[in-house]
């Protein structure tokens, strides 16, 4: 499919082992593989979705959670229109570290980036839960995070929603003019949009 209106860039960040790569693979390939290898640096996935009748190509950068890869991953924050901050609901520490990840994203991404809090592994037994959804919800509100969802990359629960709702939020910002399409905002125009809008957006669009 080459006829799309926008390319939107996402990044997925969070502690290692919270399921970032699994979320991406569930979203792009609709499969779950628990024994997946460790992400080195960054990996990349794409999928087309439609929002408000517009075709959107999501370009998703899945980053390594390892501290030692921080320098390489941070270089990908720049120009992300959406940022998924992922923690593991069964590991309290991964939630406590979210504030660090949030600060990182705010420092390296751009001010309009749609930030979404994702509590993964919701399929686990309630007895393993170490972070309540109320607490995470509150954290999201207090920190100006647009959206909070609990997901399961394993059962696919809410995975689609997380990526799509993020795109909707970004798209709202595009419509309201908060985002302009250029390299640093993480939004680029697709070929369709480009030809129809080429008069007004000179040079803003990118290959």
């Amino acid at each position, binding site marked *: 499919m080459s006829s799309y209106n926008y390319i939107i860039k996402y990044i997925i960040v969070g*502690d*290692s*082992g919270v399921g970032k790569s699994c979320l991406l693979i569930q979203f792009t390939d609709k499969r779950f593989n628990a*024994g997946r*290898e*460790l992400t*080195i*640096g*960054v*990996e990349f996935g794409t999928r087309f979705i439609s929002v408000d009748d517009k075709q959107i190509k999501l370009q998703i950068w899945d980053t390594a*959670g*390892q*501290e*030692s*890869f921080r*320098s*390489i991953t941070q*270089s990908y924050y720049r120009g992300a229109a959406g940022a998924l901050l992922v923690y593991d609901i069964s*590991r*309290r*520490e*991964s939630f*406590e*570290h979210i504030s*660090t990840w949030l600060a990182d994203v705010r420092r390296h991404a751009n001010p309009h980036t749609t930030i979404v809090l994702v509590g993964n592994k919701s399929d686990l037994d309630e007895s393993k839960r*170490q972070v309540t959804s109320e607490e995470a919800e509150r954290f999201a509100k207090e920190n100006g995070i647009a959206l909070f969802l609990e997901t399961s990359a394993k059962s696919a629960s809410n995975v689609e929603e997380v990526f799509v709702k993020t795109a909707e939020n970004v798209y709202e910002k595009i419509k309201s003019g908060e985002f302009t399409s250029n390299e640093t905002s993480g939004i680029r125009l697709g070929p369709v949009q480009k030809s129809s809008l080429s008069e007004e957006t000179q040079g803003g669009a990118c290959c």
Partner: protein
Amino acid sequence: MYSSFEIPGVLTRSQKALVRGWWKKVTAAHPKAQNFKEMKVPSVDKGVFGIPLAQSLEYAHSSISYIDDHSGSQCYGVVPTIVAKCGSFLKEEGIMVEGIFRLPGNARRLRILQTIFDTPATYGSQLDWRGYTVHDAACILRRFINYLPEPVITLANYRPFKETIDQKFSSINEKVDAFQVLIEKLPLPNQYLLLYILDMLAIFVTTTRYTRMDIDCLAAVFVPGILSHPDDKLNPSSYKHSQKVLRFLIDHQEMFSMPRSEAGLGTPPSKASPAPPTNQGLHRAATTVKKGLHASNGLDQTSYDNADHRASAIYSLATGSFSGTGLDSIVPGEDDDDGDDNYNSNSPTPITTTSRAQLRRSRTLPGNRISYSRYEPRQVVYVNRNASQSGS
């Protein structure tokens, strides 16, 4: 699968008091340490994080000892205190823990650990691991390595290591020999550190089914600190290439030699170590190794037939209190010795045949502990390299 240390964030009242007391002392001695929140550089003048290896080793090291295969004599080397300290704890408590080396430690406790290991005069050698998790230890160890100004395989040797992995050799032995030559080009402290880490990782490879950390994962985790280069910093494929190298090194670690005895640094620990092990400790450790050799003879013999000239055994003596239930609590078939601190110096920790068979590398299982009472708490750490060979 969590060890008894896995109670996140829970400290008893007395432990909290200890931490507070310690923290008061630290901040009094080093006012700068008070604003340690964004601590990425050493908070003290003579720290270890971010300091060249050779430099920090001067004041913060643990001795390792091994038998030189050529001369048969006992040699001594050094690894940073933090490495010996974390390494022994991890080998004792972490080898069955899912996600070990992958899952991050607690950020707050990591800051405390970093300060402890950065602080003279003991540099954490007396650290009691109670209240910390194995993930804390794994993480602070990796951070130490990652913060070294140069990777363990120094920048000048980066390309040769990467090129060698792609070269065609007629046999594995030749390839190993080629890497051996490269390893010997590293500064001596780096050789010790590299071989220590390889040995440790090889142990963890044997328990992949519990940890779900296979050799590729383990290699990936250590690539940035061991084999990376600023030129390739932003290039994921170069990390993957380095991962291949590290994988090979871990896979064949028993075939690499420790530095020869004439290589220098042959100072017995009693001279150089800030907290020298007693004679009893040395004697004890030596006995332990012999026992290990004997026990593993025949188990791994066949696989190492070609490596009879290789190094035999290294073990390190590090001081510091240790308080774990160790493997005895997780390996089935172990004697029920629940007393954390009551190991009797005269009766070795029983390691049963069951656990040996299960773990294959029996010789790297936790060693006999010396009595903790009366004198300084002490632990014996030993890492054997290709132990089956030196028995021959």
